[in-house]
């Protein structure tokens, strides 16, 4: 760099850089959280931000096991599996200065059962939530329900604990107990969180060390802008980056790539309520015809970013099982043609609803279309924006398959498509029976076994069509430590290099 250029860039840098407080972590997220009340939203971007200032009774450790957070310990579960007695930590402060007690927890859980989609889903099973002491609550169920603790621990549609005083159907200003508190929020510009000085550390679970003074979440909808912001040093962390940017980030002196491996699974959701796909033979034809490898390659471009894997949970997860996966990746259009013949298929178009909001959905659909047509299907692609897709998929008359994706959820009972009440409407009595056994079984090993049956059933009856596993690319400042790769990254332990 010449002396003049050096002087110029130094001068410009002096003018340019706002004075940052020591230890500020700037995080680029994909959009503006539409609420700070994680109970009423299932969006990942809401979870990522709110988990810093709102807490739940339980949380997950790094291996996705449930551990206490605002609870003092794991619950005492009655032999019949119907009563959960949960001891609460004492002396936990809310950001408004009040101290958490059993009444706050009862009011919050009651609201969760009323307004949160995951709470509402089990509200029928819950007979009551009561304060059984100043620092103890008891949840009574009408039948055993093993995933309860995972639901209480999830940051998404979260069973958040608020002070009793603010609990209402709609909460104006969210108050939590988290290690950071909300300092300022300028919609579409930033959400500024600062350290909560009266925070008391949970025992047993990973510490929330409160290392940064401030955490700022900046909504940056354009993926390229997130990459440039990361590479220019403007952001310390950037979520959800296009895999094409991997090499540039890897070669940068400022930033480094973080590969979340694997992140989740793209899914072809099947319409079990109306239309072509209500016929098992047609569903089997689709399952047999799809070239999973090619679809994943078209979608993600490089096998560094995907795995052709039919198991609903990847290897390394306690839920991993190969049951039923012999029906995955058959890639045989002739066989599919036979199924179509058996079904008496008359050329009625198979309607695939997708969007370009997530480009990989669209690329998978294009490859799928070719293979399905080779098998003898007439395919009609309905490519719309995400808002339209979100509306149309609720009308079973409009589609046969729609494309979506999900991160791997810590508990299979969180996979809504498995339930007959979901919009896909997969209501097979044999599957429902397995599902009931799965949710009421409390022995962890027996649950893993039953999950195998469930996955096998999903392949035999073509309940859902899993395309594979894909990795997510995030990026962080080179040398930054303390942020565990996750679909919902947390920054309380984040430490910037000297």
């Amino acid at each position, binding site marked *: 760099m010449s002396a003049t250029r050096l002087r*110029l*860039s130094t001068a*410009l*840098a002096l*003018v*340019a850089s*706002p004075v940052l407080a020591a230890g500020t972590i*700037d995080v680029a997220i994909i*959009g*503006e959280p*539409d*609420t700070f009340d994680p109970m*009423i*939203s*299932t*969006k990942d971007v*809401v979870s990522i931000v709110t988990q810093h200032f709102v807490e739940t009774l339980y949380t997950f450790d790094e291996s996705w096991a449930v551990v206490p957070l605002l609870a003092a310990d794991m619950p005492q579960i009655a032999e019949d599996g119907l009563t959960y007695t949960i001891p609460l930590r004492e002396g936990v402060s809310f950001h408004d200065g009040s101290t958490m007690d059993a009444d706050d927890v009862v009011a919050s859980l009651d609201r969760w059962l009323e307004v949160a*989609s*995951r709470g*509402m889903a089990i509200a029928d099973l819950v007979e009551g939530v009561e304060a059984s002491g100043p620092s103890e609550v008891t949840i009574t169920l009408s039948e055993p329900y093993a995933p309860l603790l995972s639901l209480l621990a999830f940051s998404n*549609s979260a069973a958040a604990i608020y002070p009793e005083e603010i609990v209402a159907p709609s909460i104006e200003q969210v108050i939590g107990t988290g290690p950071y508190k909300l*300092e*300022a929020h*300028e*919609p*579409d*510009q*930033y959400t*500024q969180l600062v350290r909560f000085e009266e925070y008391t550390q949970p025992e047993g679970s990973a510490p929330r060390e409160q290392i940064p003074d401030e955490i*700022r979440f*900046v909504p*940056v*909808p*354009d993926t*390229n*802008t997130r990459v*440039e*912001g990361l*590479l*220019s*040093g*403007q952001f310390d962390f950037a979520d959800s980056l296009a895999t094409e940017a991997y090499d540039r980030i890897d070669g940068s002196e400022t930033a480094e790539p973080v590969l979340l491996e694997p992140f989740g699974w793209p899914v072809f959701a099947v319409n079990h309520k109306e239309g072509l796909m209500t016929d098992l033979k047609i569903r089997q034809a689709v399952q047999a015809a799809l070239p999973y490898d090619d679809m994943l390659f078209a979608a993600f471009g490089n096998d560094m970013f995907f795995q052709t894997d039919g198991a609903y949970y990847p290897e390394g997860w306690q839920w991993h099982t190969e049951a039923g996966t012999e029906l995955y990746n058959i890639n045989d259009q002739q066989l599919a043609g036979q199924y179509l013949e058996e079904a008496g298929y008359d050329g009625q178009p198979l309607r695939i609803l997708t969007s370009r909001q997530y480009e990989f959905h669209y690329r998978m659909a294009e490859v799928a279309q070719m293979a399905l047509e080779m098998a003898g299907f007439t395919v009609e692609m309905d490519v*719309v*924006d*995400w*808002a*339209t897709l*979100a*509306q*149309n998929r*609720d009308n079973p008359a409009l589609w046969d398959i729609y494309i*979506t994706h999900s991160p791997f959820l810590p508990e299979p009972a969180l996979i*809504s498509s498995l339930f007959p*009440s979901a*919009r896909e409407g997969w209501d097979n009595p044999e599957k429902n029976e397995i599902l009931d056994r799965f949710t009421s079984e409390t022995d962890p090993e027996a649950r893993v076994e039953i999950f195998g049956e469930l996955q096998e059933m999903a392949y035999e009856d073509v309940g859902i069509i899993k395309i594979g596993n894909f990795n997510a690319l995030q990026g962080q400042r080179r040398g930054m430590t303390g942020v565990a790769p996750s679909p919902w990254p947390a920054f309380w332990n984040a430490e910037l290099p000297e």
Partner: protein
Amino acid sequence: MTRYLLNRLLGMVVVIFLVLTIAFVLVRLAPGDPAALMLGPDATPEEVVALRARLGLDASILSQYLTFLGNAVQGDLGRSLFFDRPVTEVLASRAEPTIFLALFSLIFALIIATPIGIFAAYRHGSAIDQSSISTAMLAASVPSFLTGLIFQRYLATDLGWFPASGYGGPGASFGTRMWYLVLPSITLGITNSALILRFTRASMLDILGEDYVRTARAKGMSEARVVLRHALKNAGIPIITVVGLTFALLVAGAVVTERVFNLPGMGNLVVNAVLRRDYPVIQGTLIVVATLYVLVNLATDLLYLAVDKRVKY
């Protein structure tokens, strides 16, 4: 003159009313339910119905339209569905980056384009003239998102001279905020300088061929005086027109640049509002832009009076 002004103002009301109505109908014709979007992928149909009712989206289109018109007349543009704040407040908070971006890019375009345009006209047919026209064509042809990306990558990321995106963050001073506008302004200014350059050149060419310019030269007036005093003054009207329209277009059309540089301006707001189906914000932004457009047109016409005494209304 007063009558002319009254007519124009009345016309303005009609235009805004039409824009309002068209905007209202169009955004509702678009599929996509704001309630479903706000609730996220796992929302149940019951939750969507409840939220629709809370947002007033379950009323008939006609009754929604009449309520909207009634409120708009009183200056109330409704509440943003997404931000749960009055639309006027949301728009006000987004006006600053857009207005300054438009202003700076216009100033940038004028500084670059006017002198070159005049000079090119003066040296009509020369190599300088030819090359300035080709450069202008090139600048106008490159879409601003590409220019923006190139600037962002090389001037912000690689050289670190400018911030890559955003608007300064929490508590940023006015100076810092303006600093964040430098790259976006140049990006947008380059595209628009081409238009201004071509108009200036064409307009000056016309005037330089007029008899009175020849007379002025014959009287021994210096070339600089001829060009800047006599010719430029008369070439002013078309230039003012194009500058006025460019400014209005800049405010309305900063969408792409704001997106690339993640500026929290009205362009970015309207794109997000469309994606979120935030009807009141889409309508509000359209009203503001339409009003601005009409006002700028009026102001341009009035400026003619100041520049050219022969113009009468």
